[in-house]
């Protein structure tokens, strides 16, 4: 096997989640206008404030322009040719899975996310979002005992309107950017988590997003609020069938951490990335932001981005509370014709705030992988500290890796460190490992595994396993 073949077989595992489930849909007509937005709001039985929020966002969106600054290239998206609401016809009953279309349950089973009570993942509560709606949320009763609210955002809008009204759009304003505005106008579902004061969430919370409908976009919205002294670890997974058309995924995630609260948000993104020639795949245009509103609070983003034709996302932290901590750990893998422009923003406002950025980009094929990050230190952020590491690994000679670090400091007591490296998987490294007896494929896996280790160790166990599999890396246990 030549060097290139071995590399290819490691980074180009066939997409295993590309099947489509046959279900009957309740689709809205294509296109976007105020009537469609009213229909979405009405279909979901939303209170008036939500409709107002949507309409305001829509009117803002109409005045905005799609950003062109990311280092990605794609034909213009026809926003009037997208179905903005697509729900499987059989409506699920809230507390029972009996009413969920068996084909959908089977879909999640195939994805390794069983929703049946007897087969539930150990100690992980799952909210399953299928196209535009949440079809099931597991372990709700157990979480409720601890006072934790974990439900679809649609239910939350109806059942906890005060909390939603207070927090939605408070971190990512409806007019924040083009895609956030679009999401605010048309979001259809997503997850809501509320961890009350002093509660450490007793299990991992997880949302599993699945786009099934070829013609629809997915616009989900996630809101997580950790009250004083609360803590939670949240996981997000995503897959989609293989279609030759591009599909739009424009999500918004907002995190709020009050005094001494801690939120850990992990993503393994495996949307369909298109075929070898760049046909099809998801446009993943996502706005994720958290605010450490309280003192000593902490928000940590870990992302493993292995899919999507185009990724545009910058999970960020606003460090408002004194002594608060923001972290960003990222592995972004691109192959074939994939394009990724991803990174983070750490906005230091409070005193002695600290942030860490560890970004690992792996580019193969003819892909383009950019890190874009901003570290901003406000005037009052005395003693703020940032440490950033951006490493890029190139596989082959037709791909690109780029780093765009931006630093803005308005406070002379701040300390900012930035390290960046670019390496190529070298013939010498591979030869060294082969000389020790490892075959070429294992040698490459081991090198990549080593490269991403710093990020993968931040992932919760279940996800680390999935992510490791995704990179086709053989981890033979870590004892020794």
């Amino acid at each position, binding site marked *: 096997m030549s060097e290139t073949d071995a590399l290819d077989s490691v980074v180009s595992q066939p997409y295993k989640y590309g099947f489509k489930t046959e279900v009957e849909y309740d689709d809205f007509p294509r296109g976007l206008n105020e009537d469609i937005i009213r229909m979405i709001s009405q279909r979901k039985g939303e209170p008036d404030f939500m409709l107002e929020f949507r309409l305001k966002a829509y009117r803002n969106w109409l005045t905005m322009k799609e950003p062109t600054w990311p280092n990605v290239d794609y034909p213009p998206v026809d926003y009037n040719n997208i179905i903005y609401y697509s729900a499987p016809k059989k409506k699920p009953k809230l507390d029972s899975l009996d009413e969920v279309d068996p084909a959908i349950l089977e879909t999640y089973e195939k994805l390794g996310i069983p929703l049946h009570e007897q087969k539930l993942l150990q100690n992980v509560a799952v909210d399953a979002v299928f196209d535009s709606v949440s079809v099931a949320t597991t372990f709700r009763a157990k979480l409720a005992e601890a006072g934790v609210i974990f439900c679809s955002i649609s239910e939350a809008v109806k059942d906890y309107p005060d909390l939603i009204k207070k927090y939605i759009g408070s971190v990512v304003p409806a007019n924040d950017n083009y895609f956030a505005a679009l999401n605010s106008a048309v979001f259809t579902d997503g997850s809501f988590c509320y961890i009350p004061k002093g509660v450490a969430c007793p299990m991992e919370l997880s949302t599993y997003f699945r786009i099934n409908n070829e013609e629809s976009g997915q616009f989900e919205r996630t809101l997580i609020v950790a009250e004083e002294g609360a803590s939670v670890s949240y996981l997000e997974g995503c897959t989609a069938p293989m279609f030759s058309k591009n599909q739009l995924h424009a999500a918004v995630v907002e995190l709020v951490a009050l005094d001494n609260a801690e939120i850990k948000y992990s993503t393994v993104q495996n949307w369909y990335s298109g075929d070898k020639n760049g046909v099809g795949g998801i446009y993943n245009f996502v706005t994720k932001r958290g605010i450490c509103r309280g003192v000593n609070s902490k928000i940590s983003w870990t992302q493993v981005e292995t899919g999507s034709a185009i990724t545009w996302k910058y999970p960020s932290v606003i460090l408002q509370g004194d002594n608060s901590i923001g972290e960003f750990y990222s592995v972004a893998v691109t192959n074939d014709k994939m394009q990724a422009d991803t990174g983070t923003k750490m906005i230091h406002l409070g005193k002695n705030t600290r942030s860490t950025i560890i970004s690992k980009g792996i580019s193969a094929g003819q892909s383009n992988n950019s890190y874009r990050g901003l570290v901003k230190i406000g005037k009052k952020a005395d003693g703020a500290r940032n440490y950033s590491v951006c490493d890029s690994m190139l596989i082959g000679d037709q791909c690109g890796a780029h780093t765009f670090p931006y630093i803005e400091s308005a406070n002379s007591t701040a300390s900012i460190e930035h390290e960046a490296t670019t390496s190529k998987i070298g*013939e010498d490294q591979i030869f060294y490992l082969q*000389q020790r007896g490892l075959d070429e494929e294992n040698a490459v896996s081991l090198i990549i595994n080593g490269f991403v280790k710093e990020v993968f160790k931040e992932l919760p166990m279940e996800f680390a396993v999935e992510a490791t599999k995704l990179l086709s890396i053989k981890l033979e*246990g870590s004892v020794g």
Partner: protein
Amino acid sequence: MLQIKNLHASVDGIEILKGINLEIKAGEVHAIMGPNGSGKSTLSKVVAGHPAYEVTQGEILFEGTDIAELDADERARMGIFLAFQYPVEIPGVSNSMLMRQAYNAIRREHGEEELDPLEFDDYVHKKLDLVEMDPKFLDRSVNDGFSGGEKKRNEILQMAVLNPKLALLDETDSGLDIDALRIVSNGINQIKSSDKGVMLVTHYQRILNYITPDYVHVLKAGRIVKSGGKELALELESQGYEEVEEIR
């Protein structure tokens, strides 16, 4: 064990080895000496199977099998080990992980059961003393941030763990201070045995004060120009490579 017959090899179209003949039997230590650019390191890389080098003529027989077309990993699993002149850094991969995977790959090849991480841990700890290495080295990334001496000791540790039949030591003594040289040499001496062959590539005579060669060969411009016993090394030391005359 190793028979090299009329070996010609080139890299990027430039011929480096121009007809090497050499036989190493089990239990023998052969020192390959020569000036810079003579092809000493190339010879060890070609025997180990570095993909950048092309064998254009001749044979490399290992235990009777021509290995010239085999991949480096296949040769390694047959029992050929190369201690690198410049050991490669592999960030994020722990020493013990690499050694266990390599050791188990070799065991699999021979139909032996693999060691689990705990069993391997016991096994590898016993080898640490050979090169006076702290167990902490096992958890560190392969050669990452190691000093020159630590890297060379690490090569010998790997050799002790993988227990090869043929050891190719490529300038293992270069860049070592006298203590490190002693430690590395002691390690090699303890590993070598009547069933192993050693090819020791070196520019200097000093490592041969610690490891006694059975044969010394002088390489010049891709050919072995002189062979002799251990006294040849001393001769070279006093006269220099320039003085060695062509023997054919």
